[in-house]
């Protein structure tokens, strides 16, 4: 198994750097993963990441892109409720990249 090291502590990940254990996640780990994805975490990024974790806790899966855009729009202002906005924050796709930073398993399937 692969792992990453943050502040002297090792965290198990899968081959692509997604955390294996949900409970391992903390803000330092999130910042570290974001850096490996060439993302500089701003307040706007945190809004999305925190929402993803909240949603996951309730539903045991990341939200659909549409659900995510709608929720972000409702909560943080309509101008943020578009997939363009989310792709702007997470260019490799809000689904996969933001999930990785949020310490959630990678959504896979025909997506």
């Amino acid at each position, binding site marked *: 198994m692969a792992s990453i090291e943050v502040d002297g502590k090792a965290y198990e990940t899968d081959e*692509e750097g997604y955390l294996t254990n949900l409970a391992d996640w903390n803000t330092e780990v999130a910042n570290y993963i974001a850096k490996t994805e060439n993302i500089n975490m701003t307040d706007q990024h945190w809004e999305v990441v925190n929402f993803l974790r909240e949603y996951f806790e309730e539903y045991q899966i990341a939200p659909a892109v549409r659900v995510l855009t709608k929720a972000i729009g409702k909560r943080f202002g309509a101008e943020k409720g578009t997939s363009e906005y989310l792709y702007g924050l997470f260019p490799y796709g809000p689904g996969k990249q933001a999930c990785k930073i949020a310490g959630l398993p990678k959504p*896979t399937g025909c997506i």
Partner: protein
Amino acid sequence: MADIAAPAYRVIPIIPALKPGAMEGVKSFVANDKIQEALGFPGHLVEDWHDRAIAKMGELLGKYRSLKVYMDACVHCGACSDKCHYFIGTQDPKNMPVARQDLMRSVYRRYFTLPGKLFPKLVGARDLTREVLDEWYTYFYQCSECRRCSVFCPYGIDTAEVTMAAREILASVGYGQKYSNEIIGKVHKIGNNLGLPGPALLDTLQGLEEDVKEDTGIDVRFPIDVKGAEVLLITPSADFFAEPHIDSLIGYAKVFHATGTSWTLSSMASEAGNFGMFVGNYEHLRKIAMRIREAALELGVKRIVIGECGHAWRVAYSFLNTLTGAGDGADANDQFAMLLQKQLDQRYKQPMHICEFTWDMIGKGALSFDKEANDKHIITFHDSCNVARGSRMGDFAGGQFEIPRNIIKAVANNYVEMSPETTRERTFCCGGGGGLLTDDLIELRVKGALPRMEVLQQVVDEHGVNFMATICAICKAQFTKIMPIYGFDRRMVGGVHQLVSNAIRLGAK
């Protein structure tokens, strides 16, 4: 991902120069013990893999007469060699269909033919070494089982079946692929490829009802687990989750609404896709298909309709009858198959594709459209391989080509065809089919999309095409991801029912 560049378009699309070994380093992730064991496969490569692989091959050769014919029949005429999108895009000679199959054929000769046993070198027979096994894994997971090469084979060799057999042998000795096998595990455990649990599905569907109400002012329902509904819709779980897939789901719901058809989704069978076919494993293929029967019986539906998913339609059209009893051909001793036969309304095709459903309704005058709503689009249609070469629609030959096109023309004013060398039964794979739609194969996916992107570019340049419609969840996801690398907008790709959704008149009719 960012550092993978799109290959340059070919000036004249002929056989590209060979680059031996170009793709030997591109290998999708191997499944770990947990994923493998959940499917009943060994967790990792077993010690006696050689003997077990040969025994498995013998078993498959006995079980599938076709496989033996395909092993024996090839005369290396080369008709298939330049027909594969992966060969065209990667230039690796082992991605020529004939060369890919010969990875297995050489082993077949060594262990199952007399000349190969006696004079292996003379007949190109090889021992199954660890290197050969690794080569199998690498290159049989660089085939999308799209069967384009088979169209050009004078002997009709179904190359996808060879790939499926190789993958089945690999998984059985503990050498399975992470992407496909993890997904099969999720279907068995949670009910769909994505691992979308019931409550999340419910929440998503409620959200869609709100959205459509907001857009149209009309209460279009997205029912789930409704007993006694007429239609059970089985659709890929990507339709609940991803863009642009979800827009087609909205389209199906609007069609059912406008035609007054009572319908339901099922939380148990919340997946049309069947990766059991991709990995060539009959038991998993059947087990996944069985969820559809179970849901249909439990909900008491009269019809089974399949959403926009390429390989799901192949499984449904070609295999669901003998697997589950939906349609003719079930075993008379299979009590549940007989029950399903009796329950389903045999005045309709069972199962039916959503495009057949919509086209029938258009024919009956039950739907009407504001075609102008699609005027911003100049549309072309990408045939998906499993629909084009593995199934049919309607009651005439070529229905699987005509019906989706007819629907597009009924709901939109601007339609353009791509080069006939690359459409209908000669369509090119999107580059992500057959269990390859995974990020660890992104280089292969980008390169394999080359021939489709070349002809798309032509209609973009000549006709201003700005929308490529397709009826497959994998095609939609693959194109959304790789088209930006070729300089296209990711929103250029979408479903046929997305176009239906834009133009359909709700309510009054």
